[in-house]
């Protein structure tokens, strides 16, 4: 079959090289070869609920409020994230660390506002008492993360943000706060002795100190985080690594057996090793 002269007169020039010989003869049915060959190619889709794949490490997922290595929160309740938010999705109420109920016994004026002593939720003067993000408004632009002066707010890879009620889609502080990793000491407790919030921000605090452990032991002797934090304080174990985001467990029929089979075959890496950690860089390092 020769080229259609009608097209040539209109100045039509094919962009792709034209088949010749047998290829030209078979060109009208070449599509059948394409579809048949495609049957033997691997599928490109993900087996989503059964096997959850991590998105790219820069993915803008659910937010996380991070902690310093001794367990204090990074959020200082400054509301810059809320001001930066173009969708008005964030609501923050700050409060003074000195007003914590743990400090109620202290004489008025005994605790200076920026004193490292006394109970602290975060280093320095203030902490975020209320922190809400409305995920029905959030557009995941990340301007809040850029606005955060203490790098308290980052975004995780958690993309599974669906709910069955409007109220449930407003995530509270306890939903957003990064859980304590092994070796962190649960807040509230004093700042590490002789430090300022600037030292925290620079990353000079690498774990709980003995004074902090003693303070918590005195007030909350059955706190679950005490043992690991004491080990960090005494130097018998390294300081806690920042928490990395993990994908939620696979779902669906057969997923559990499949996962068990793969684990037995040794083909599955631990999720944390597999995933480029969102906040794996050393604390305070500029990314």
């Amino acid at each position, binding site marked *: 079959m*020769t080229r259609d002269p009608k097209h040539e*007169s*209109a100045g039509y020039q094919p962009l792709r090289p034209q088949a010749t010989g047998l290829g030209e003869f078979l060109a009208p049915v070449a599509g*059948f070869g394409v579809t048949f060959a*495609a049957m033997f190619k691997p*599928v490109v889709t993900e087996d989503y609920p059964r096997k959850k794949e991590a998105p790219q490490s820069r993915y803008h997922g659910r937010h996380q409020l991070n902690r310093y290595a001794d367990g204090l929160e990074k959020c200082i309740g400054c509301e810059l994230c809320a001001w930066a938010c173009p969708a008005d999705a964030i609501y923050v109420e700050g409060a003074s660390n000195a007003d914590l109920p743990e400090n109620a016994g202290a004489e008025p004026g005994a605790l200076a506002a920026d004193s490292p002593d006394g109970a602290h939720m975060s280093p320095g003067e203030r902490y975020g008492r209320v922190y809400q993000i409305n995920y029905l408004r959030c557009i995941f632009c990340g301007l809040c993360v850029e606005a955060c002066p203490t790098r308290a707010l980052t975004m995780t890879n958690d993309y599974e943000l669906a709910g069955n009620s409007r109220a449930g889609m407003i995530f509270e502080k306890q939903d957003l706060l990064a859980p304590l990793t092994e070796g962190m000491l649960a807040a509230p407790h004093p700042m590490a002795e002789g430090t300022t919030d600037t030292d925290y921000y620079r990353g000079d605090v690498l774990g709980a100190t003995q004074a902090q452990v003693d303070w918590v032991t005195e007030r909350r002797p059955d706190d679950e985080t005490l043992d690991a934090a004491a080990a960090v304080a005494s130097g018998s174990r390294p300081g806690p690594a920042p928490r990395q985001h993990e994908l939620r467990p696979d779902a669906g029929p057969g997923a559990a057996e499949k996962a068990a089979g793969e684990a037995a075959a040794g083909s599955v890496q631990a999720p944390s090793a597999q995933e480029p950690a969102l906040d794996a860089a050393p604390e305070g390092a500029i990314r």
Partner: protein
Amino acid sequence: MNGVTWAAAGVAADFSNEPILASVVKAVLIVVFLLTSVLFAIWFERKVVAAMQLRPGPNWHGPKGLLQSLADAMKLLLKEDINVTRADRVVYLLAPMISVAASLLVFAVIPFGPAVTIPFTDFTTPAQLTDFPVAVLYILACASVGVYGIVLGGWSSGSTYPLLGAVRSTAQVISYELAMGLSLVSVFVMAGSMSTSQIVSSQTSIWWFIPLAPAFVVYVISMVGETNRLPFDLPEAEGELVSGYMTEYSSMKFAWFFLAEYINMLNVSAVCVTLFLGGWRAPVPDGFLGDFLNTGWLPIVWFLVKVWAVMFFFVWVRGTLLRLRYDQFMVFGWKVLIPVALGWVVVLGGVQWALNVAELPRSTFFYLAGGVVVLVLLPLMFWPEKRRRAQQEAEPEPIDAFADGYPVPPLPGQKLPASPRFGKEVAGHDS
């Protein structure tokens, strides 16, 4: 009519000792086979199309998603049954039933295999519900009646899109059943019978799709048109007519149309296998391994393998081709398929006459045939191409690029003047 006279009328299968009970059992088995095959066919189609599109397809319900179509059927059963107020109620309800009933009829005359002996007994019976001297005509009749379901369903819905779908379906069946019937005629000529069992037994030495290749191609194309499958699914064209004739149908009534469509696919596949692909005969030369491959229960396996190969072709076509435009579809049916089918029947008739009636020696016949072919091809080599070339070399008309004050594109045969920037050097560009 008893079996002896049937045999005399050219029916190969022997139904002379067939008790009523055996026929009833066979009929039930055929219905069960068709219904389960439809469930499997839907899964098969979705899986194969998915593989062609690099995705896994249904994989959630049952092993490899095999129970997906069962779940879909349950869903349809439990859905609200909506009756359109403006519908012509009786016909509206009758239409899906006509479709299903007609589609279930065809397999009655399809031979699944030769005579089989029921295990642990000495009762031997053909693996076929029935057969008669005009069985293939009966198949064509059933297919035509099935279209009434589509046409009446579209008409009685009292809605625009279904009506358009029904009209298209009518036109489609008229144009493509002609071609289909004509392609089957050549099989009748070669087999000397319209009985399905006789046609299968006439393919002992060679399957008809080889000597009757043009008829086979016409049949394959028209069978896709007959079943409203892509690229000929114009009666239901989602992009144009919502769902065509079944737009106003919901729940079980819709499921019946759906069922009929897939049974029809199985029907035309089975007819294709029976008439062109050797029926239940093993895909090896006759006499290979003795009679073993072509007797007993094994031929049923060959039959099913072939039917599903044709079903795969259906899915393959669907995964590859786009829907035709309606006018192209009609032009293809009337100006290509029917003339080709008709011409082939004439050629075949001539050949049969020359070999069997005039009894020309083979060598004489081949010389004659070669001469005719050359005589036909010779003018073709000079004709259309040259004329078009001459036309094309005519000077392109001048174009008024700003006719009526607006920039306009060139019409066919016109050529744009060279751009004023053509040939100028581009500033800052070395080459």
